[in-house]
Structure formats: C-alpha cells, structure tokens
C-alpha cells in the first residue's frame, strides 16, 4: 500500500503530468457534449470551493459551518457589480474575492481571545444570517426572487473585456483558473504561511514560542479561506447567470464540508477527486439526490472517525511542507553552523528582582539573574522551587508581580511570549513542543519562521526571491542537523522518532530562531547516556557561538562539566550562586534537596 501511495503521490506531483492533464482537458473539451462540459465546470468550481475548506480546516485546524456565506458574498458581489453597475467581469470577480476575504477577516475577530469552538459557532451564525440578509436585501440581491440576468457563460450572455465567452470557452478559462489556484494553494502549504497555519493547528504554545501569533494567524486563515470561497462563488455566478438564495443556504455549506472531508483534509488531489464524485453523483443518480441530506449527514458524522484522512489519505502520501525547488537550491548552498552566530555580540540578559505571586502563593521571591554571552548558567533547585516560573516570567508567559527583565538595553518585561522570542530570547520546553506530523527538517525550518521575510504574495506565487530565502534557511537547517547529529532522520516524521531525538530537534529548532539568549528547560530529561553526550556537545557548540545559555536541569553529572556557574533556588528564593563544586558542598543546598538531616549525615 505504501508503495502504491508513493507512486501515486509522485504521479500527481509531477508537473509534466499536471500540464499534460490540463492540456488534454483544454484541447479535448470541444469533443464533449455541452452538458458534460457544464458539469465539468461545476466540478472545477466545487474543487476551488473545497480548497477553501482544505486551507482553513486541513491546514489551520479551524472549522467553518457557514462557508456558503463566503461563496454567496463572492457570487452576489460580482453579480451585482457586473449586472447592475456594468463593471467588467475582470473587475467584478477580483472585487468579489476581496470582499469575501475581508468578510472572513472580520468574522474571525475574536480569534485572539476565545476558544476555537466559539469561532465555529460564529461561522454557523454567519451562514444563517447571510442567508437571511440575502432574502431581505431586495435592492442588491433581488431578495427571494433572486437575481437573474447575471452575465453567464451557460446562457451565452457573458463577455469578458468585450470578448464573448460561451460555455466551452468558460470551461477552458475555469480550467486555467483552477489549475492556477491549486498551484497557489500548494505553494502556500509549502511556504512559511502554510507551516505557521499547521503549527497553530497542532500546538499554539509551541507556535508562540517561535514567534507565531495564534490569533492573527487564524484570522489570516479565515480571510484567505473566505477569499477562495468567494472566488468559487464569483465563478459560479458567471456560469449559471441566476442567483437565488436557496443556492447559498445550509445545504451548500454542508456539501462543501462533505467534499472537503471525504476528499481528505490536506490533500489537494483528494479534493479534486471528491469534488468530481459529489458533483456527478447527484446528476447521474436521481436516488442519491433524494437521500442527499441523509447521506451527507451520515458522512459528516462518521467520516472523521472512520476515515479521518479521506480519499486523499488513502491514496496519497501526506502533504509535505517544504518546496522541492527550495530544497534543491539549498543543496547547492554551503552553510556553516558558524553562520548562526548572533550578529551583535555582547547582549546580556538581566532579570532584576523578579517576584511572582499567584494569589497567596509566592512562586519566585526577589530573584536576580544575569546571563552573559558565551556563558552557560544552570538554574537548579528542588521541585516547586520556582525555576520554571522564573523562566516563564523571562520569556513572557507570565508578567511578574515585581521586578524587571532587561535585554540588550530594552525592557522586555511583560511582552507577550512571541514578542520576547522575536527579540532574541528563545526557550525550549520540558516536553518537546514539536509539530507531530512534520518531519525533523520541517520542524527545524519552523524555527526559522521569523527569519523568512518575504511577503505572503511572494510565497504564494513562488517568486524567485522567496525561493532563494527559503533555500538559505534550509541550508542553515542542514547545518544544524549536522551539528545535532540528526541528518540521517531528517525526513522522518518527528512523532515516529525516539524521545532523545525529539529533544535534540527541539534544541535545534530553537537555534534556528537565531537567538542571542537561549533557555533550555530540562533538556536532558529522559535521555540516555549517549544522547546526553550529544546534547552536551551541541550546547558547547552553542556556547562557542557566543550565545548566552540558561539550563534548568536536575542531572548534576550532566551539568557538572558543562556549566560555568549555577544558581540554586529553594521555595522561590535564591540560596546559592557560584560554581558547581561549591554547590555540592553547600549545606543550604543539601538541606534544600534532602532535608536537614542528610545535610549533616
């Protein structure tokens, strides 16, 4: 099965075959009956519509239960602009797409503040309200009577820029548009935007630690998804020529969900197959049309449970998130880990008199800490002594009750976690927060997210500048892989790899964020001896690069040869600062760990 999948995936991804298919359809269309051509046009529109769900749900993990609304905005917008106001189609359609995108952006405004299920409910409401608005707003939409007379290919009333376009020509145009859209969606998936979408889908906190803001990213996903759905709607309007509210009600939203889910969330090819299936079925099978609602209901109820990856998951390999062309370019570049060295040396991080209170509990009590570039400091203490809390304060997860955090001359106290990461202070977590389905390479590349400065448009159109930048970062990824001894498993999904490997990967990912200060939270936990040696070497390399390093850990043998100095916390207070040898003999430290008696045993 796996070989079949690999074969099919390669087949579908081959651009020559894609071009061949498009060409064949373009040239072969005149040979088909007009009826077939029209159904095929519907398939293409459904495929684009399904992509909008694919993007939102498959990639970004958000759910929309009212996507017919965006579809409808696209349709009515171009319909009204072109029919009523005489705009040309070439203007009407893009404006419709823009409006639908803006609607998506506006609808998802609570994304920063509420659970995703609230957003899902809002989309349900949106679909409902849109339907009612359409029925009422007679002047624009024609109300319940609908909007007839939209220039349509099927009715031969459509002309684009003065050129008459009939059903056949429209199909050919649709073909090109659909192909182009698919290409752009694939480019998006393999760009930093796609990776960011998927990251917030799987782990918002991990995404935040790299500098990816969850709320804004979700809004972008809803906006793009809305725009795509609007495009499908606009193209639909100029196919059918008549827009009635019934076409933009709940059944439409349900149908696109079914197509997208059965096709397989995340699989572009699967979506096309599914769109074909569900467009032809109601046409050819009258009985299906009768039982449609019931069938769709059952499919939605059980498909995510029985066949979560849909047809796409069955036939094809899971989509990858790095552009092959960027990889090819990167292979030609030579990257040296030394390039990860921070640009400006000499930035120290100072935590001054940090106090953290949770209700009546004082977790951190007047602790001051200084991290110098090129030095490794250990932060140790019994469980509950406040180590993790202190790190959370420094990295912006908590705002301290008192005290300040300064870095490179800036006061970074109270900045959000992704802002602190953006400033150059990066951390890892006690349990590796990696994205499960991503490969090691993809996970590492995610660390370089903020280094990729090219615009979204450049990413989607796969412009040379964007590819070059990605290649550069990929080369650095390669260097880090070598440093962390992960090259051999670079292209395996991270959740199939052992714990020690994942730890190394997480440290590597943090490195790619080009930090000046790095805080490692229990990096050695759960590692075997050889794994610990590799980690030690990696940390030494980072020190040599000039990073300021803070290590929280309990494994004293791991820390002994590695650290320059150690800070010991107990019950939120600092009870020792100095070197490790001294710490071992310090009575207060021993008492803190083992209790008074062991100190004098």
């Amino acid at each position, binding site marked *: 099965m796996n070989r079949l999948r690999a074969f099919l995936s390669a087949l579908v991804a081959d651009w020559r075959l894609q071009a061949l298919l498009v060409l064949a359809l373009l040239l072969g269309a005149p040979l088909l009956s007009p009826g077939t051509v029209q159904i095929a046009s519907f398939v293409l529109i459904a495929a684009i519509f399904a992509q909008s769900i694919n993007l939102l749900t498959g990639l970004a*993990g958000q759910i929309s*239960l009212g996507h017919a609304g965006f579809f409808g905005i696209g349709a009515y917008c171009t319909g009204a602009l072109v029919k009523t106001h005489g705009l040309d189609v070439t203007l009407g359609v893009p404006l419709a797409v823009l409006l639908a995108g803006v609607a998506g952006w506006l609808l998802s405004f609570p994304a920063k503040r509420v*659970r995703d*299920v609230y957003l899902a409910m809002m989309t349900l*409401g949106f679909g409902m309200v849109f339907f009612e608005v359409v029925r009422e707003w007679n002047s624009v939409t024609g109300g319940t009577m609908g909007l007839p007379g939209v220039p349509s290919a099927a009715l031969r009333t459509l002309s684009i820029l003065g050129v008459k376009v009939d059903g056949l020509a429209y199909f050919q145009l649709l073909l090109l548009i659909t192909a182009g859209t698919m290409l752009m969606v694939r480019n998006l998936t393999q760009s930093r935007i796609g990776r960011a979408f998927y990251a917030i889908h799987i782990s918002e906190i991990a995404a935040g630690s790299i500098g990816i803001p969850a709320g804004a990213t979700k809004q972008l996903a809803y906006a793009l998804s809305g725009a795509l759905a609007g495009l499908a709607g606009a193209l639909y309007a100029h196919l059918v020529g008549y827009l009635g509210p019934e076409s933009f009600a709940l059944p439409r939203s349900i149908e696109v969900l079914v197509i997208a889910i059965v096709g397989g969330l995340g699989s572009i090819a699967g979506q096309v197959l599914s769109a074909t299936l569900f467009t032809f079925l109601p046409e050819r099978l009258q009985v299906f049309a009768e039982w449609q609602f019931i069938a769709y209901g059952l499919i939605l109820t*059980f498909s*995510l449970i029985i066949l979560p990856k849909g047809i796409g998951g069955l036939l094809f390999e899971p989509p990858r998130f790095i552009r092959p062309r960027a990889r090819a370019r990167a292979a030609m570049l030579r990257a040296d880990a030394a390039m990860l060295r921070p640009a400006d040396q000499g930035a120290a991080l100072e935590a001054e008199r940090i106090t953290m209170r949770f209700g009546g509990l004082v977790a951190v009590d007047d602790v001051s800490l200084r991290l110098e570039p090129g030095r490794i400091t250990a932060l140790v203490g019994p469980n509950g002594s406040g180590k993790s809390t202190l790190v959370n304060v420094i990295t912006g997860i908590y705002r301290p009750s008192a005290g300040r955090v300064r870095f490179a001359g800036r006061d970074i106290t109270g900045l959000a976690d992704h802002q602190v990461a953006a400033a150059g202070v990066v951390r890892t977590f006690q349990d590796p927060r990696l994205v499960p389905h991503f490969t090691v390479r993809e996970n590492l590349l995610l660390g370089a997210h903020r280094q990729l400065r090219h615009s979204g448009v450049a990413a989607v159109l796969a412009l040379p500048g964007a590819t070059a930048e990605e290649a550069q970062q990929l080369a650095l990824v390669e260097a880090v892989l070598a440093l962390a001894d992960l090259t051999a498993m670079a292209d395996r999904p991270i959740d199939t790899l052992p714990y020690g490997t994942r730890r190394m990967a997480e440290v590597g990912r943090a490195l790619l964020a080009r930090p000046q200060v790095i805080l490692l939270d229990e990096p050695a936990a759960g590692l075997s001896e050889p794994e610990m040696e590799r980690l030690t070497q990696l940390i030494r390399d980072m020190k040599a690069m000039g990073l300021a390093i803070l290590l929280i850990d309990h494994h004293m043998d791991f820390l002994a040869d590695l650290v320059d100095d150690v800070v010991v916390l107990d019950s939120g207070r600092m009870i020792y600062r100095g070197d490790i040898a001294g710490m071992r003999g310090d009575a207060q430290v021993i008492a803190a760990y083992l209790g008074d008696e062991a100190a004098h045993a």
Partner: protein
Amino acid sequence: MMDDFFFSLLLAGISVGAVYALIALGLNLTFWTTKTMNFGQGSLMMLCAMLTVFLSSQGLAMALAVFGSLLVVAAFGVFIERWTVRPALQASGGSMGWVVSTLGFGIFLQGVAAKYFGSQAVAFPDVVFTAQDFVTVFGQYVSLQYLVVLAVAVALILALELFVRKTVWGQAVHAVSLDPELALVQGIPVRRLVLGSFMLSSALAGVAGVLIAQIGGTVDPAFGFDLVLLGFVAAVLGGMGSSMGALAGGLLVGIISKLVGGYVSTAAEHGIAFALLMMALALRPQGLFGKAEVSKA
C-alpha cells in the same frame, strides 16, 4: 399604559428568551463534562416536537406523547455521546472533529425527519391551553400559553441550578468541569456523569423544542437548527457555565430579538442575535456572569 404591541412583543421575548436559556443550559451541561457542545442540538429539538405530533396523532395522550418523545431524544443523547463525540475526542486528527460529527448527526436527523414526516410544516397541537386563552394583567392581554412556557422554562432552570449547587451529583458535575482527573481519583464515576449529562442535555433540548413549537404553532424538519445558535448566544452573553447567566442571557436575546423583529423586520431576528454575539465577544467575552473561560484550549 403600555403600548399593546410593545407589550406583546415583550412577553413573547421573555417567553422565548426563557426557552433560549434552556437551550443554553443544555449546551452548558455537556460543555461542563466534556468541553464539547452538540452542534446538532436543534435537530433534537425538532425531533422531540415532531415525535410529539406524531404520537398524539396516533391517539396517545398528550402527556404521554411528550414524555415518550423526551425518552427517545434522551436515548439519542446517549448515542451521540458514545458514537459521535467520544470517538471524535479520541481520534488523533485534531480536537474539533466532534463539531463536524455532531453537526453531521443533526443533519442526518433532519434528513430522516424530512423523509419520514415530509418537509412541510405541521401544526403543533396544544399541550396546555390554546393559542386563544388569555388572562388580563394590568389591562394587557397575556397569552396563557406564553405564561406556561415561561413557567416551565424558568422552573427547569431553577431546578438545574439547585441541582448543581445543592446536590452531590450536581457538585460532582461541577468537579468534573474543573478537574476530571482529580474527580476520577476521588471515585467520581466520570463516565456515568458524562453519559448523564448528554441525556439530560438532549432532554432539555427536547423540552425546548416542544415549548417553542407550542408558541410558534408549527414545526418542520428545519425547525430548531437556528435555535442552537440563539442558545449559544444566550450562553455567551450570560457567561458560559453559569445557569443564572444563561437565564439572563436568554432573556436578553429573546426580548431584544423579538422587539427588533416586531419593529424592524422578523427576518432581522437572527441578525440581531448574531450582532449581539459579536458585540459580546468584542467587549466582554466572558459574559455577564461568567468567569473567564475564554482562553484557548
């Protein structure tokens, strides 16, 4: 002297508002125990109302028809928990599969109802009183049906509030909503509570369906679908997880939407509810009585 029109709208708003609160409570219940909501709740409302019509048309006494329908709907609640929510929560593909599953099941029920009962609206018989019965309060005509609906809804809400506050099982539900692991370790039968919450939530939906159908006079397969949204708005306005909040939120939604519906346009009722939702999320996501349970999972 209050304007008759205004007063009748107000009363209608209060009555339906109380029912929206019931729906909100149903959503709250499963949210407490599993952090999920049945997006197909509306179809359960519709099903209960339709079954009541069907059973009573077969000659069954009204009370029995309602009761029997409630039992069926509660049974569906069990099915939904076991076969659409639990497997979705356990599937690794993402945390929101249950939204699609529960919605899908609601669609399925709607389709079945349309197939079996037809898609036309059917008249909903009088459970208590008739649409013409009224009393005079302060010189205004007050429909008895509206009053009964209001009374039933408020009674159920108070009963639930008392249940959660005063009884051990109610406390246990609250505990599960706070820390399911800790509840387990103290011997609380979490699984049974989850099942019970789904049954009760579905039954509440059924009652809401019957009450709304009574006021509205008819029921059709698509009935109820939009009600889940209104219930949600009520829950958000009042604060997710608060029964009193649900009542406050429900009344607010009910009154405002009925007033807007009467003075502007009936079609604007949902629109205004949606607008209220957007306002609440923009200004005060935790609602009137809620504790900030609005951060992402």
